[in-house]
């Protein structure tokens, strides 16, 4: 295998995991930007999306695109209910809100273990085989993840820029009080923002299910990476989450390919620390006044 193939494979894989991190981190940073809540249960909504995708695809045998929509819808609605019932009461107290999300995370994960068992479940590929271009070989299932993630993000971007609800969310993120003065119903925006945020995590989970597998514990690593990504990109910044996700995915893939897994883990976090030393507010974050 030549050097060019090695780099091409590393770039493709970096894009795949970067896409997953981006979807996770965008939702995560959205919740923080709008609600000032660090959602520790974000990884569990990813897991619920993966399970919803798994059951609908394997049991109902319906097109995968429909499975994705169902996963986003079910988890999104669940997220709105969770926000309304369990997070809203702690809105004035960020620390209590964070602890509430931590409790929600444990409840959802253990509930999933009780309901579906701890063992990982293999999910059949949406598409099988590889795309061979000369000496390069790219798995179709991974190429689909990149394309789907790009499409989902484009739709999310349009929603945020072009719809009244999206604009309302951005207004609340920028200044809650001014948004209230402008007649935006903040109490309606919060659950909706939380729902959209966890729906993005669910989409990431459902997309990655066929590539890896589905189990009650699959949300832990993406959650950890989402944390790193939002710090890297700038807490609360959606463009920062996109850039951060792709940068972390690429760093992870290239360092693991070139130096191996163990060195990669060290280098990833080292590079993140270096970036933060130069730009403490993250790549695209704004300094606190």
């Amino acid at each position, binding site marked *: 295998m030549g050097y060019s193939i090695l780099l091409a494979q590393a770039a493709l894989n970096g894009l795949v995991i970067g896409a997953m991190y981006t979807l996770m981190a965008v939702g995560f940073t959205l919740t923080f930007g709008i609600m000032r809540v660090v959602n520790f249960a974000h990884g569990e909504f990813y897991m619920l999306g993966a399970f919803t995708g798994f059951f609908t695809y394997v049991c109902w045998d319906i097109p995968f695109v429909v499975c994705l929509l169902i996963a986003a819808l079910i988890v999104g609605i669940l997220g709105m209910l969770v926000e309304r019932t369990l997070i809203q009461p702690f809105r004035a107290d960020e620390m209590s809100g964070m602890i509430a999300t931590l409790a929600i995370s444990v409840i959802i994960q253990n509930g999933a273990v009780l309901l579906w068992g*701890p063992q990982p479940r*293999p999910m059949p590929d949406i598409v099988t085989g590889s795309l061979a271009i000369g000496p390069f070989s790219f*798995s179709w299932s991974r190429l689909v993840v990149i394309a789907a993630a790009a499409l989902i993000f484009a739709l999310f971007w349009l929603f945020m820029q072009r719809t009244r609800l999206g604009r309302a969310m951005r207004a609340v993120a920028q200044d809650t009080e001014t948004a209230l003065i402008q007649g935006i119903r903040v109490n309606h925006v919060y659950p909706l923002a939380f729902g959209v945020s966890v729906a993005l995590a669910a989409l990431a989970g459902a997309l990655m299910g066929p590539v*890896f597998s589905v189990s009650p514990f699959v949300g832990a690593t993406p959650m950890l990476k989402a944390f790193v990504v939002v710090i890297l990109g700038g807490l609360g910044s959606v463009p920062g989450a996109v850039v951060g996700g792709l940068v972390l995915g690429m760093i*992870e893939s290239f360092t693991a*390919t*070139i130096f191996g*897994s163990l060195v990669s883990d060290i280098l990833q976090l080292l590079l993140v620390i270096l970036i933060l030393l130069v730009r403490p507010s993250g790549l695209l974050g704004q300094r606190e006044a």
Partner: protein
Amino acid sequence: MRGILKAALLSTALAALPCAASAETLKLGVLATLSGAGTAWGIAMQGAAELAAEDVNATGGLEVAGKKYKVEVVAYDDHYKAADALTAFNRMAFDDGIKYVVGPLGSAPALAMLPVSTENKVITMTMAFTPKALSPDFKYSFRPVIPSDVFSDPQIKWVVQKLGAKRVGGLFPNDESGQQVGAANEAAYQAVGAKFVAKEFFERERVDFVPLLTRVLAQNIDAFELDGNAPQTAALLVKQIRELGFKGPIIRTGGDATADILKIAGKEATENVYVHQPINPDSGAIKEYTKRFEDKYKQPLNAFSPFFYANVKMTFAAMQKAGTVTDTDKVRDAMLALKDFDTVLGKVNWIGEAQWKSNQQLDAPFYVALLKGGEAHVVAKCTPKLCE
């Protein structure tokens, strides 16, 4: 008349009371990985204990020295981690008062736990492949499964000669189990003229192996080794290395993972995969056990399960022979005295004195199978000396 009837019923009930009080419970611990990538092995061990318990409970309990014991299985998850295994073991030994444990599963948990289980005279039945799991220091540690340092040499020799592979690569978990298996593999391949040109280590939580497999494939390997990886991980490795375009032979020298490899990687990706097969799937007793296990647990049998089932049955026989369930020294001696004991695997004995100075390794034949059309076909029968 009614008064007499009442008195008779009352006296019968009273007479039955001491009988009910004498029905004692014997707790059998299971300490294995019941979540994450090693779950298939953990369920295999838990299933073996539960099925063996079912057998004796169906006959009214295990009769030892005139007393009947109802066997109750108590299972804890070690998450394939040394610290968690030790915590769970302490709970078993000190809170539950358990003296017999099916487990630990991995080498790292075994090394953390065995000094404590030895000190407390708890009989363990481990799946740990590390040579350190059997030693005169751990006199209560038994191993029912055949470890890779017994089966890897004859199997690797057979596979290398058959395939003519010269350059081999593999990925191993970054812990005691993985490091030990990696080193054993390297030595075994080199001993038969092949070179282990790419050896990478990863953290067990990892599910995306593409960067590491790309790195391994860059070394132009002829064959890829799956030894040391949990069933789910081995299956993901097969799937992902095939997606990267590798068409060469894949060898599974390590513990049984065939069912998971076939289920996750699929028929197409599993062509040209050689696997270690601990049991002969054509044996009548194995077929019967497989059906019983799969009916109960609704998942394919992991071939390690019958080994633990056999070991638990031997433990029960040893308790009966020793006439005690509490004196593990006597039970241990009685277990070691069992010769040509009839089990689901056929007649088995204890070996290992020459290799580990501990005669607590179960002896049984093993096999090499080739995966074809989504099924395993036995292509060689092996002993610790050779495969043919």
